[in-house]
């Protein structure tokens, strides 16, 4: 069995797959890769299941040593990754030999890189998923929700089923402004008219207080004037507005139920785009109704998977 041995863990690197499903009613959150699109591409390059377990590297800092050889693939953010000091290209597979060192530096473009290994990282499952959720103490290599630590073994079995680069035309453009599609929710009508205008006509700044649970935006405060709410289930990408008026976008490790008013929820592709935004970057929100968003989602998935055959 080949493996990558962690020599330096960096601020936040963890094993993530497509997430945990069928368990939200038990209070267990979703987990899984925040930029699921980049994760899918990383797996596609090696012929893996698209939701196979990968390493999610946030902001860089991860150093690993290769034991054994094989093809790996890198997608998502450009974190200045090098193999024995040679800069690696993102969105391409690359071959490693025993003893080589793969190091992630710091963000050059985007926030999260996805490293795929043949067949996916070997890790124990809970409810069908190895997604690492630190807050819940579940998933990951140790089944206790720990991120990667020094001496961890990221092991894989067998060889890559395919070795192919992402077609250039299909590489997500992380330089383009992040215009995030938001499906309006039922409580949107509870916000003041001015706040609805502000929500969709200002540049929101990504705040430093952001993690896998939620990402805060700062800007002109939004005012909710509707009735008080009883806690209820929260979907991925929910844009909730606490009393300070600064939206929090709830991500994969969100709490499963909550009672703050919500403008709506980002589309899955908008969540993937947001996951690549660094603190200080600006984003805009773009309102949409569910049916139109679904049509667009299917069309984009077809375009993105056109070359996947």
């Amino acid at each position, binding site marked *: 069995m080949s493996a990558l041995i962690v020599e330096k863990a960096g601020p936040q690197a963890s094993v993530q797959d497509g997430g945990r499903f069928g368990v939200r*009613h038990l*209070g*267990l959150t979703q987990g899984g890769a925040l930029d699921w699109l980049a994760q899918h591409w990383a797996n596609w390059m090696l012929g893996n299941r698209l939701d196979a377990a990968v390493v999610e590297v946030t902001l860089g800092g991860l150093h690993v040593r290769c034991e054994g050889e094989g093809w790996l693939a890198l997608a998502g953010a450009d974190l200045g990754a090098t193999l024995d000091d040679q800069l690696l290209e993102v969105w391409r597979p690359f071959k490693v030999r025993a003893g080589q060192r793969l190091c992630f530096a710091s963000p050059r473009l985007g926030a999260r890189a996805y490293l795929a290994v043949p067949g996916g990282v070997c890790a124990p499952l809970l409810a069908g998923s190895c997604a690492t959720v630190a807050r819940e103490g579940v998933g990951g290599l140790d089944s206790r929700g720990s991120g990667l630590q020094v001496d961890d073994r990221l092991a894989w079995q067998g060889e890559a089923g395919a070795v192919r680069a992402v077609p250039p035309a299909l590489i997500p453009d992380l330089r383009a402004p992040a215009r995030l599609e938001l499906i309006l929710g039922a409580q949107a009508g509870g916000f003041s008219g001015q706040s609805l205008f502000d929500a969709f006509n200002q540049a929101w700044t990504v705040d430093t207080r952001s993690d896998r649970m939620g990402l805060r935006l700062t800007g002109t405060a939004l005012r909710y004037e509707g009735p008080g709410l009883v*806690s*209820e*289930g929260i979907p991925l990408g929910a844009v909730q507005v606490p009393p300070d008026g600064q939206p929090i976008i709830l991500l994969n490790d969100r709490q499963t*139920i909550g009672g703050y008013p919500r403008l709506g*929820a980002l589309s899955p592709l908008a969540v993937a785009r947001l996951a690549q935004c660094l603190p200080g970057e600006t984003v805009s929100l773009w309102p949409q109704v569910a049916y139109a*968003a679904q049509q667009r*989602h299917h069309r984009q998935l077809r375009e993105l998977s056109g070359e996947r055959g």
Partner: protein
Amino acid sequence: MKARIEVAAIDCLTLRLFEVIDEANVPWLLAAAERLRGVFAGALVELVPSYTTLMLQYDLAQLDDAQARALCEQALVGLEPAATGGGRELALPVWYHPSVGPDLEALAGQRGLPVDEVIALHSGRAYSVFALGFAPGFGFMGLVDPRLASPRLATPRQRVAAGSVGIAERQTAIYPAVSPGGWNLIGRSPARLFDPALEGFSLLHPGDRVRFVPVQRDEFLRLGGDDTPMEAQA
């Protein structure tokens, strides 16, 4: 049963069956959940019950918004509340004591009740599990006697011990694992609330009825409870 069907996300709908928290909602919500599981079958991804709502996530590859709404309406036709409430009856031991329930005496003082009366009132009725959330296996239960209703702490604790029994307004719960928390802590239970080795992972499920049984320290320890005071774990 008439419910509002609201958009929650591209692939999520919220069914709003009630406006206010009431124990009488529970059998209706359970029955609706059962029906929804039936009509959505393999297209259902998640179904999250809460006090007044059910949020469901469906598979976008199988259904669109209109189809999902139609299935929701179909599921609610002629709905009857679940006969038994659907859940199980559970008796969970609790050691009510200031060393593991650091707000027990303050809560008694604020409510003008002797500590023994607080314990008697809290353990004197069965509670419905309304929803699980906040953390894996964390069951929101109610309703506690209005004489015990107390607001959350102004400043939540950074660390609450696993097994801590708390009150917030007219709700009560047990913290399954060490976590931050703002509920008033009155005791500790040795019960294991969440364990990947448990069938279904969680001891509690929506619709269960829970009674708290006061036990002394010896019994608490014998049942596997950890009496380490909070401060020592901070």
